[in-house]
């Protein structure tokens, strides 16, 4: 259903499916026009809440999508493309860097050390991926100061 409201010259348009409209108590067009006519302020409040709810829902969906992308990053080794599913089937890893990527799964692997025993960073490919993720997150939360630092770090890895 199409809902158009004009209050003090301000136009608000809303398109809702039948199920959503019913769940929000906006099914009967006649009652709507009645409410609009006799209780314009309450009606505006209700519509505002409805818009807020819908916007919030859309944001949640986006966050969930980003979360699933992040989860996918942890199920595939960026160095050798070996997947967590393959590890579960074969109990083998694709490369030494898989120890860092799938560490939580096997309860093993944190930082790697060289022969001398000194602690090294994880492989450049994994480090770059992590920086990219952090940069994306900083841009999304509009933390441009951190984003600039992360961008410079990324440039150094090139």
């Amino acid at each position, binding site marked *: 259903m199409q809902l158009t409201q004009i209050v003090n010259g301000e136009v608000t348009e809303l398109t809702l499916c039948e199920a959503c409209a019913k769940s929000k108590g906006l099914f009967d067009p006649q009652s709507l026009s009645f409410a609009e006519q006799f209780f314009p302020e309450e009606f505006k409040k209700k519509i505002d809440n409805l818009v807020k709810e819908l916007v919030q829902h859309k944001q949640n969906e986006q966050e969930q999508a980003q979360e699933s992308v992040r989860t996918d990053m942890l199920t595939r080794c960026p*160095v050798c493309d*070996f997947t967590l599913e393959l590890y579960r089937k074969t*109990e*083998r890893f694709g*490369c*030494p860097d898989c*120890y860092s990527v799938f560490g939580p799964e096997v309860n093993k692997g*944190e*930082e*790697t050390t060289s022969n001398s025993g000194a602690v090294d960073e994880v492989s450049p490919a994994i480090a770059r991926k992590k920086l990219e993720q952090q940069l994306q997150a900083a841009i999304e939360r509009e933390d441009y100061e951190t984003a600039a630092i992360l961008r410079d770090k990324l440039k150094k890895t090139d």
Partner: protein
Amino acid sequence: MNFKTLTKQASSWFKNPGGACDIIIGTMVRAVRNLRGHRFPGWSTAEGRKAVADILLPVLRELPGNKTGFEAEMKDLSYEQRRILLERKQLSHCMAARQDGCHVLINKKQDITYMVNEEEHLAIHFYESGTDNIQLTKQIQRARKTLAALEKRLDIAHNRRDGYLTSMPAESGSGLQLYTVLQLPCMSIAGMMQQVTRGLEKLMLNISPFYSELGDDTGHLYVIYTAPLICGGEEDMANHLRNIVYTLAEHEMQARLKMTSTEEGFSVLIDKISRAYGLLEYARRMEYAELINTLAMLRMGTVCGYVQPTDRSPNQFLAEMAACYPTMAPYNMQYITQDVAENCSQEILRPLLCRNLIKDVIFTQNTLNSEYE
């Protein structure tokens, strides 16, 4: 060293097995290492394996004894050549199936095999033929010395928590594994091997037949091995395995003593040894598995004093018999005789060679070795 020269020498497992005792054939330390930033061979491509080989081979060639040793890429080895190396126990089954970018190096003394791109980027087998006093700790030190020389020049994948990283996370740790090969004919005849297997499982050790492709009990030879060792526990495990090996050797001796102490047992034992002697003396056709079983009985008969060489020492005779294990194997015989896939002629040739082996060897049923009296 070319392949023909390699096959002319006895493989390290069988050079001098047992010393004065025929029970302990030999020991082996397996060491594995992987390079950082490269896919494990099982998940790699031919190009990836080649890149790993290009890093490892120049370093391996510079190790002592390798310049004059044997080196080959697996794709250049024929099926028969791979089978010969398997018969000589100088190659793992996994490596025998490899192709491009996988290399095998065997040092001049033939007591170390280096395998590039086996299950791991580098797998090294250190062999020592059995003596009365096995020195597993010394062998571990020998392996460590070689590995330390390699680690100075290679970027080895290592993790503070897991130790040396391997393709199987459950096997990461020190990257070392210990093996011993025992010949236990009397315990096998007495039906004690199932009991031994259960006992070893409880002691965190594994047992499998040495000639698994020929049957479970061929030659009464068994491999007893540890799981891949954790960091810091190598010496303890070496002593643990050593103690178990000695205990088993003692049980085998006791089983022989027990058999000879009763009339029934003695008749069973002497029957098996005399049949083995008779087979080698009079057989006209002989399969490899039959030969291995026959030699096992004859070796036991020699140590017990029933079979005595007149022109050489019993130890020398034991070593000669042990050398027959790899040289009389089907593919090795085929290669030496250049007799292409003619099993029947091999079967005829084996008893002929064996008759030469037991020349000047007498069978004395009534003689008992002093240690059994």
